[in-house]
Structure formats: C-alpha cells, structure tokens
C-alpha cells in the first residue's frame, strides 16, 4: 500500500489545523468534547490560559498518542484526533491570536510529512505491517452491521435486542444471496438503524403520553392540596416552585447567551466547515476509527454510511456541550464527513461543509429545546455511541489479530494479542479501540528487528 499526499491535501491539512488552532485560541471551538464545557469559564476569565491549557492537555494527550497516532499510522489515513486534539491545545496555549495559526500550521505539516515519511519507511521494511493492516476493513464492516442490535439491547432489553439481531442477520443473508452487488453489511446496518429509530420513536411517544397522564394526576392532587392550604393559611408549595423556576431561568439565559455567541461567530465556523469538507473529500482523512480503515480501502460509500450513523450518536453531545459552553465543535455535527466522502470534487465538498456548519450553528438552540423534551432519543444517542464502541472494539481487536497472523502466523497472533492483554492489565493506558493497532505496530517493529537479526523469516504479507 502506498500513500500519496497530493499538494491539495498537504495545503488543506495545514490550513485546517492552522484555522482550528485559531478558533480554539479565541475559545470559539475545540475538537475535544470534554474540553468544551470548560471553555465557558475560560472566556469569561475565571480560568487562566495556563489552567485551561493544563485541562486541555490532560483530557487530550491520551487520545493523541493512544488513539490518533496509532490509527493514523496503521491506516495511513489522517484522523481528527491526530490533527485537531493538538490544535486545540496549541490554540489554547497561544497567548496571542497570530501565534495560534502558526503553531497549528506547523503541527499540520509535521503530521502530513511525518505520516508520509513513516508510511514510506514502513512500506520498505521486510515485514510490512501496513499491508497487514488491510485485514481490518472486513471485520469492521461486517461487525458494524450489528451495532444497532447492541444499542437496542442496551436501551430496550433482551427481547427487542434479540429480534433486531436476528432481523439484521436475515437481511445480511438475503443481501448476500439475492442482491450480490450490494455490500451485505450495509443493508443489515440500515435495517438495524431503522428498527432502532422505530423503537425509540414509539418509546418516546409512550413516555410522553405517560408523563402527560402523570402531570394531570399530580396537578389534580396539587389543586386539592392548594384548596386545603388556603383554608389552613400557609402555602408550602410556593417557595419551592419559585426556586425551581429561578434555577431554570438562569440556565436558560446562559444557554441563550451561548447560542447567541455561536450565531454571531457563524462566519468563522463556515470557513472551518469549508476546510473540513475539502479535507475529507481528499480521501486522505477520515472522521472515525472505523472509517479510517474503510477509507484506506477506498470504500467511500460504506464509509459515508458508517460515519452518518456515528454522527447520530454524537449530535446530542455536541449540541449540549456547545450550548452549555458557547463554543462549537471544530468538525461541527460530523455530518460533513459522509457528505464530503461522497461528493465528486473538493469544490462541492467545501460548499457542502460550509453550508452544513452554517445551518448547524443557526439551529443549535432549537435542537437543545427539543433534546430537553426528547429523553428517549437522547438516551438512544448515548447508546449508539456505546454500542459503536463495543462492536468496534471487538472488530478492531479481531482485525489486529488477523493482521498479526498475516505478518507472522501464530507468532504474530501471540504478539498482538499479548500486547492487547498487557494493556488491559496496565489499567489501559491506550484506549481499547487503539490497543490492537498499537499491538500490530509494535509487533511489526519487533518482527522487522528480528528479521534483520536473521531470527525471523518474513512471510509474504497479503
């Protein structure tokens, strides 16, 4: 496998990290969803730049080296963790506005040139672990088809979970038999998502109906209490009620101020959207762990489907943290990824990215109001994130062990699996999702050293 960064890809990566750092310098946007809530205190002046930098570094460092770098190195595709977690930190630590884009640009250049140099070196080695990593796409694509069933089990219990699982399997088998030109995992995934949406909507409607019925009975009993107290004198309910509404008013006004701050800065986000759109359209950048390996194999339509469903798991989180902090997500609602993978050229992808980010920022406050009411949907989103993680952890571990097998047979399996188990025992310094790829990289380096020492005879990696 070879990697060619076109001049456009190099320039757009550098521009994207530069502009991302510029946005985080002004506390307008960060990529790390965990850092975002703290930005409210930062731009209000309650947190110093040094404190904020420490927070951002603490929450991001593990994901840069424990997720972003290994996924980029093992797939040969850029990802947002390796590009934008550092740009968050570099922007936040820059005391001056002009410094942030310079530092961001330097980081972008380091990543692009570093990654292509590292891939070139890796490709020239006797044991080619990058080619071995091609084993990753199949388990990811097939296992991903079952994540909706896992999410359904988490939220709606074992019966509906089992039904969803069986239907997904059935769809997969039917597609394999009669729709041979379609990827079976994609159809099963779509079927699972449809079921998840149906279950969630039905549950939401029922929950609302119950809540309304309950409200009717409590208001009736409240009325009874009120009539009693009016006879007795003191109304006990009143102060509590005012307190509740005061707390809620305060929060609502914070949220409204934050949403207004975001709307006012919409032009900045539109520029970021254009950059991300063009970047994802180069097909040298992928938005997710799974899609890095799928894009690497050139399966853009599958990647778009995967990242579209993944977005459903992240939108409520992004919206809540954005409105609670007044800072946006560097990659928006992540809907730009699927659009940009599929669009035929960078110009259209840029336009789509800019338009998406603009719309997203404008509708933030409406979605927040909706999310406050739609509890089941919000839960579904959490479960989607959890289920994606669960299935991807299995798929990536399997893919990594298969890569180990491709490199060195049983020895490779032992090395990759052993490193994974070791990471678990050490309290998981590398996140599970990246532990397999880290195992493959380490095993690959070791096997190459052994090959040079004539202790291991390389086999042909297919």
């Amino acid at each position, binding site marked *: 496998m070879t990697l060619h960064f076109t001049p456009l890809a190099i320039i757009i990566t550098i521009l994207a990290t530069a502009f991302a750092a510029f946005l985080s310098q002004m506390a307008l946007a960060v990529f*790390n*969803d*965990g*850092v*975002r*809530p*703290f930005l*409210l*205190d930062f731009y209000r002046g*309650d*947190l110093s730049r040094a404190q904020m930098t420490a927070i951002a570094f*603490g*929450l991001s460092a*593990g*994901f840069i080296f424990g997720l972003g770098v290994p996924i980029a190195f093992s797939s040969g595709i850029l990802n947002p963790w390796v590009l934008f977690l550092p740009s968050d930190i570099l922007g936040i630590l820059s005391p001056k506005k002009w410094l942030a884009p310079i530092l961001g640009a330097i980081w972008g250049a380091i990543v692009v040139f570093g990654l292509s140099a590292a891939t070139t070196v890796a490709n020239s080695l006797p044991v080619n672990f990058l080619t071995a990593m091609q084993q990753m796409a199949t388990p990811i694509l097939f296992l991903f088809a079952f994540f909706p069933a896992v999410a359904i089990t*988490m939220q709606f219990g074992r019966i509906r979970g089992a039904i969803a699982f069986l239907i997904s399997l059935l769809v997969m088998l039917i597609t394999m038999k009669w729709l041979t030109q379609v990827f079976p995992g994609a159809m099963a995934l779509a079927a699972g998502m449809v079921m998840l949406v149906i279950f969630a909507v039905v549950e939401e409607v029922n929950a609302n109906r119950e809540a309304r019925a309950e409200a009717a009975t409590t208001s009736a009993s409240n009325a009874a209490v009120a009539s009693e107290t009016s006879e007795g004198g003191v109304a006990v309910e009143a102060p509590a009620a005012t*307190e*509740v509404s005061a*707390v*809620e008013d305060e*929060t609502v006004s*914070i*949220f409204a101020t*934050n949403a207004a701050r975001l709307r006012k800065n919409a032009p900045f986000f539109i520029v970021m959207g254009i950059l991300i759109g063009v970047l994802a359209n180069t097909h040298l950048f992928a938005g997710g762990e799974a899609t890095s390996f799928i894009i690497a194999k050139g399966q853009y339509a599958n990647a778009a489907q995967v990242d579209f469903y993944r977005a459903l798991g992240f939108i409520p*989180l992004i919206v*809540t*943290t954005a*409105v*609670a*902090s007044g800072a946006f997500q560097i990659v928006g609602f992540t809907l730009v990824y699927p659009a940009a993978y599929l669009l035929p050229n960078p110009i259209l992808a840029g336009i789509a990215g800019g338009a998406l980010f603009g719309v997203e920022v404008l509708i933030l406050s409406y979605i927040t109001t909706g*999310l*406050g009411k739609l*509890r089941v949907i*919000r*839960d579904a989103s*959490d479960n989607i*994130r*959890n289920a994606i*993680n669960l299935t991807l952890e299995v798929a990536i571990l399997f893919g990594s062990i298969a890569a180990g097998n491709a490199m060195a047979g049983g020895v490779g399996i032992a090395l990759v699996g052993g490193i994974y188990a070791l990471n678990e025992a050490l*309290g*998981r310094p590398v*996140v*599970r999702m990246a532990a397999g790829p880290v195992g493959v990289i380490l095993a690959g380096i070791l096997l190459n050293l052994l090959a040079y020492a004539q202790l291991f005879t390389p086999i042909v990696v297919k």
Partner: protein
Amino acid sequence: MSTIYIGGVGKSDVKRLLEQRRDPKLKIVVSNDLEAGPILKRSPDTYYIGTCHTGAGGSLGAMLAFLGRQKCHTFGRQARINTADVQKLLDSGIRAFGLSVDQINTVVPALVDAIQARRPEGGTA
C-alpha cells in the same frame, strides 16, 4: 440518604454496578446532565456521576453550566483513585463527577464509598 444521579454513555453499566451493592441507604436515579443539573443545584446530598470516552464531554456536559466548575470534577481516563482523594474532593464541595467509561469498574466503587462515608457527618454538601 444520598441520591446519586447517573448519566452519560455508560449509565447502564454504572447502574448495574451500584445495584449490586444492594445498599438501602443509596438511592440511584438514571438521568442525564440536562435533567439532573437543576435538581443538584437545589437539593443537598445529591451527586452526579457521568461517563463518556473522555470523562468530561458527555459525562459532565451541561453540568459545568448548571453548577459551575468548582462543583464539578473529572477523573478523565485516570484508572486508580483512592477514597481519601475523593473525600478531599467532596470536602471542597464537588458534587458532579465525570469519568471515562472504560474505568467505571475501578473508579465508581471508590467514589461511591467516599460519598457513603460522608453520610454520618451530615449535610455539609
């Protein structure tokens, strides 16, 4: 009685873990940041445990806006915590905790032990 509101990605895992304690003195409510935020703000002896991948985004989320940064703490992806440290955090008035989903089994028990241990001293929370 302490009430612990739980939310975020790993809420069902946290719930299962806490239910295994079979502790009558512990009330667990599955919730989320938007719902639990106002409740924590007005009721003493209530706590929030949120989980996500960073330990701060989906975990704390809007909590920082509701309660203020001084009342929130994230363990991040930290794997080992001890009850004494948590005790210190609770003494400083922290009520909402965020942690990474993959550290639930190591962090949550120590955290809840510390919350439970505070009970005899009474409502300083």
